[in-house]
């Protein structure tokens, strides 16, 4: 394979206090591609995703073991700048969570935090980001309107615009379409394909069609045999995982027999 690897996850285990949520996850995530994480509820997909930008650090008493290399740097190494890591690895959440402010303020938030103060510069970034999130035409006359007054689908694309405004390298998406209607879902999928030209995307999804339609690589997660923590049981090119799965459990899952 000639593609570069963005993340290399190496024997990662994760604990919420005494509770083990991930065991020995080893996974490579290729650059500028879409990697889908699939698997039944509670197998640790969200937990794994939140390890990639260390958002789990905000939960008290959590602990990770193993290594997560981002461009060959271990993000769990002591002295890692977590704030900078999160700027490089952005995140879109399951429920759209725009700030209760205007559309403009939402998108300008990240650049402001990073120190951009010039109004014209901010306007440029906001427009480019909203265009990048395929939202500009719908909101260009209402940039001052309260973000919460838009539909959920628009709010989710606003959250995507807000993330790309800080020019991250990776965008993590945790079931970004689960609160959206089918048409908004398709729009977000189109948008993901568009974004994958410039960004590495990792998406958790419950929707098998979505994974097979929209992703290049698919990783199947599952509870370990003692059913106490999750791990990756199969990774491969999406087409291959869906048509010729190597693992019986993957086959059962993608054909809808359980999960």
């Amino acid at each position, binding site marked *: 394979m000639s593609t570069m690897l963005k993340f290399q996850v190496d024997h990662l285990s994760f604990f919420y206090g005494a509770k083990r949520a991930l065991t020995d996850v080893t996974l490579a995530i290729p650059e500028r591609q879409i990697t889908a994480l699939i698997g039944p509820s509670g197998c640790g997909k969200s937990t794994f995703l939140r390890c990639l*930008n260390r*958002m789990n650090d*905000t939960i008290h008493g959590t602990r990770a073991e193993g290594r997560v290399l981002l461009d060959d740097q271990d993000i769990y190494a002591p002295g890692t700048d977590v*704030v*900078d*890591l*999160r*700027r*490089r690895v*952005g*995140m879109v*959440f399951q*429920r759209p*969570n*725009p*700030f*209760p*402010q205007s559309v403009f303020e939402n998108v300008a*938030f*990240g650049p*402001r*935090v*990073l120190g951009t103060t010039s109004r014209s510069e901010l306007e440029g970034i906001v427009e480019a980001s909203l265009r990048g999130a395929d939202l500009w035409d719908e909101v260009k006359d209402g940039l001052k309107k*309260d973000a*919460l007054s838009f539909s959920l689908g628009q709010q989710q694309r606003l*959250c995507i615009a*807000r*993330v790309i405004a*800080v020019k991250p390298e990776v965008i993590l998406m945790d079931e970004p379409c689960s609160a959206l209607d089918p048409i908004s879902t398709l729009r977000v999928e189109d948008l993901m394909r568009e974004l994958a030209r410039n960004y590495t995307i990792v998406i958790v999804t419950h929707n098998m069609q979505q994974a097979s339609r929209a992703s290049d690589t698919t990783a199947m997660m599952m509870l370990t045999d003692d059913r106490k923590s999750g791990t990756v049981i199969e990774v491969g090119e999406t087409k291959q995982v869906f048509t010729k799965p190597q693992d019986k459990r993957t086959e059962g899952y993608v054909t809808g027999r359980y999960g």
Partner: protein
Amino acid sequence: MNTSSRIRLSEFAVEALVRVAGFSTIGFVLLIFLFLLREGIPVFLQVPLDNLFGTRWYPTFDFFGTLPLILGSLLITFSAIVIALPLGVAAAVFVREVAPNWAREILKPMIEVLAGIPSVVLGFFGMSLVAPLIRTTLGVPTGLTAFTGALILAYMALPTLISVAEDALDSVPKSYRDASLAMGATQWQTIWRVVVPAARSGILTAVMLGMGRAIGETMAVMMVTGNAARMPTTLDSLFRPVRTMTATVAAEMGEVAQGSTHYHALFGIGIILFLITFLINLAAASAIFQKRRRGGLR
């Protein structure tokens, strides 16, 4: 008598009791309000308005100008809020967002204890400690000034302000914090740019409640503000003695002849004070209402 009818009877008795208690409470409030109106309205009829809202309060010479008293009250109330707001918000942010768990466990009950300090104790503290300090450090003729009153009032408003602001911060959804942190904002940036703005209507309510409490406060204010009924319109007024509406009523009610114009004037002040407090509460209520309607805090 069988059990079920006994239950029904006691049910009826309890309901009647609650009803009587409820209605009589409302009834008493109404009665007080009517009494206030009956005793206060005459002054608005007996004294011409330009005298009543004039700048001189010398009741013995029939000058009933309430303006210095109203301005005095407003001056120390607003100054108190200007002092208390940043302190209160900072304290709430510290307790809610920054302090480790054990410190929060200690601080919260301490703040509640502060709310329970009797105002006469604070007044005494202001007179004997704060006032001399202000006199010597600022070099003013007396330490009993509007500023001293504002400091004491700020201190009194703080506990309420902190705990209401803290609740407001607490009700900001975690998803806002997550969104901010996930974009590479630091903890402080998240607090100042996301959490505090999202809690602003709750903080505004805290301010209104604090103001309502401060403007009606009597004892501590009377003890530390010097009580000179002068117009607080010069630049240095904050550091001169001042007299509030509450202190005037409290100080003069005891020696006034019942039924005299002066007597009615004191009740008139009561009406004005009531109106101002009512407006503040109305503003607070509409702020809460607006917050609900906008769905700003979810």
